[in-house]
């Protein structure tokens, strides 16, 4: 029983930390209270649902329950949040989809992509282009088309990966990320050139949903809340699939490839197929995230999907914990509130906000954290928490 109390102690400490951080970065006290309550309820729900017994016998049900709890609580919470927090939350949730794809690519197959910003861009632009040419297509279908396009691009770029070892894939994705702007520009009659594209109409809740719940249902009243809710639901589904994929035969095969590719080949896993699959999954997830960004912002601009975005994506997933699912969630939250956090640091340290140092603080802090994380805690925050958790639990057993 002491093991349990030790676990609860760690969990409590993490929760308190999360609450403190949410008070620092949130726009208002009301948001912070709501966010803290949401975190508490999710934690409690997840803890009760995932009793070891259920997790061992019916893992898929446990995962579905976990995703559903998280999504439902988050949906309810969006009602209490201000529009700013809703927007940040949606941005972070879409980003966490991208991150979990990258996390899978690295954690499962040991490859890395430095071009995820560009893959997001593929999804984002396909979404906008399709919506401009076929305004009546339902959102879900458009999202599906964007994902398919991202998967196709990932497949084409991933083909050489079947024959490559080492860092070539990373270099190639980097080249893609740097080239992406020029590629967009080459097709500027489709992509709208430097100005980007606007969606033809703001995504509003469909009529059948309104007639089902009534017009005054809180979640359906404003478009921001509605878009946030779509994003959250999609995120929940994406994470549910990813959790299953991690644990599936394919996922386990890929982890074997990461640890020892010769052994993997000897037990009959096809290396080329597994490598390309991992890469296609990662790029499809990235373009889903990008498509959601287009939906949230109601527009898309080429200046968003630069090489800097790809590097930021890599930073937040590494800091959150690359190769883990929790790490992707942490990374998404870090991304959503990084701007607030940096400006808080700027104001606390009394730097001139227009100065050179303040404008570069983002890069210095994220780059530095990236190096420190890789050198001292390669699994990031998620890995650290897990490590502390396990050593505490082990120590308390007599």
């Amino acid at each position: 029983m002491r093991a349990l109390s030790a676990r609860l102690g760690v969990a409590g400490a993490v929760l308190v930390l999360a609450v403190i951080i949410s008070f620092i970065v949130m726009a208002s006290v009301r948001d912070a209270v709501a966010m803290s309550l949401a975190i508490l309820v999710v934690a409690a729900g997840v803890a009760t649902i995932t009793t070891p017994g259920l997790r061992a016998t019916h893992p898929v049900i446990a995962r579905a329950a976990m995703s559903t709890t998280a999504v439902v609580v988050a949906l309810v919470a969006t009602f209490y949040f201000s529009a700013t927090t809703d927007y940040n939350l949606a941005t972070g949730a879409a980003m966490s989809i991208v991150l979990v794809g990258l996390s899978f690519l690295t954690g499962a197959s040991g490859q890395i992509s430095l071009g995820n910003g560009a893959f997001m861009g593929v999804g984002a632009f396909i979404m906008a282009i399709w919506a401009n040419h076929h305004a009546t297509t339902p959102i879900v279908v458009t999202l599906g088309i964007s994902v398919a396009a991202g998967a196709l691009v990932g497949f084409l770029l991933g083909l050489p990966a079947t024959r490559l070892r080492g860092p070539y894939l990373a270099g190639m994705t980097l080249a893609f990320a740097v080239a992406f702007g020029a590629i967009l520009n080459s097709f500027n009659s489709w992509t709208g050139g430097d100005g980007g594209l606007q969606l033809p109409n703001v995504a509003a809740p469909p009529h059948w949903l309104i007639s089902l719940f009534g017009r005054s249902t809180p979640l359906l009243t404003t478009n921001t809340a509605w878009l946030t809710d779509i994003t959250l639901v999609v995120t929940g589904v994406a994470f549910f699939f990813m959790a299953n994929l991690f644990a599936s035969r394919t996922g386990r095969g890929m982890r074997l490839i990461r640890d020892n590719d010769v052994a993997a080949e000897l037990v009959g896993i096809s290396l080329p197929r597994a490598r390309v699959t991992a890469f296609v999954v990662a790029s499809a997830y990235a373009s889903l995230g990008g498509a959601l960004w287009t939906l949230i912002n109601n527009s898309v601009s080429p200046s968003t999907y630069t090489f800097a975005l790809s590097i930021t994506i890599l930073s937040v997933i590494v800091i959150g914990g690359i190769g883990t699912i929790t790490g992707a969630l942490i990374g998404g939250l870090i991304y959503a509130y990084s701007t607030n956090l940096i400006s808080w640091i700027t104001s606390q340290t009394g730097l001139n906000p227009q100065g050179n140092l303040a404008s570069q603080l983002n890069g210095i802090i994220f780059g530095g954290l990236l190096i420190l994380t890789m050198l001292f805690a390669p699994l990031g925050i998620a890995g650290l928490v897990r490590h502390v958790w396990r050593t505490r639990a082990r120590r308390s057993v007599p």
Partner: protein
Amino acid sequence: MDPFLTSRIVSDLLGGVTQGVIYGLVALSLVLVWRSTGILNFAQGAMPMFATYVGMVFFAKFFGYWPCVALSILTGFVLGATTERVLVRPLYGKPEINPIVVMVGFLIVLESVAAAIWSSGPHSLLSPFSQVDFQLGGKPIALSDFTLYEIGTALLVMTLVAALFRFTNLGLQLRASALAPEVSRLLGVRVGRMLTIGWILSTGVGTVTTILVASKSFFQGLTPQVMDGVFVFGFIAAAVGGLESPVGAIVAGVGMGIILQFVTDYVNSNAILLVALVILVVSLMLRPNGIFSPSTARRV
């Protein structure tokens, strides 16, 4: 009047070679690090960029052009050695993504710190040579004092590196420790020191390249991101030529410079990155180890 020298094709060829030696030098610096430590250094553009800022912007207040060049290269040497000792050494034997991520982090830090100290706007460098093209019968040839200086410097650097590897005792030790570290260690080669020297050489080559790149009127001076695009072309050249092969890297670099110059002239300048990417994908599909590397069997 010699219309041949001023014709479009010859202009493109000369311009391509001028650009290509730069890609070749970047590729060479990547190959030097790859051969000594098996790491693809994603900060290979940023480290020399920083050294160039120190040498050509900070020291330019006190000295003339040539002392500043020497100081830049010296800073590059120090930066390369420090990076290898502090950031890279703990990563040997770790999964191969760890050094990639660390060097990407280092790239971000260096670019941000450089922008924080010297601002993100361009600094024009002193240039001892004119960049105005020679004239022949009223038409420009795609050559100037500066491009001759550029090509000459590139050739000099390549010759020096080749001579170092081929004719000196140090070069022999470098090759030995890259080929068979354990045997070399038993024979008394200080392998750790050789790895550091590999990084020093690579950053030195990179710094010379960066000074040339930042002096070109095309880039309008030194910025923290000046090497990003050049790095990508250099990487593609190194990958096409084979990361194991210095000669392959240089040949691929020059070849790519020429091809891309023709693409710029006959298609448009937006297409060059796309074409470079296609070259990379196709060549990796056909020859995964690069055109100039022998195919190797992997030991199990």
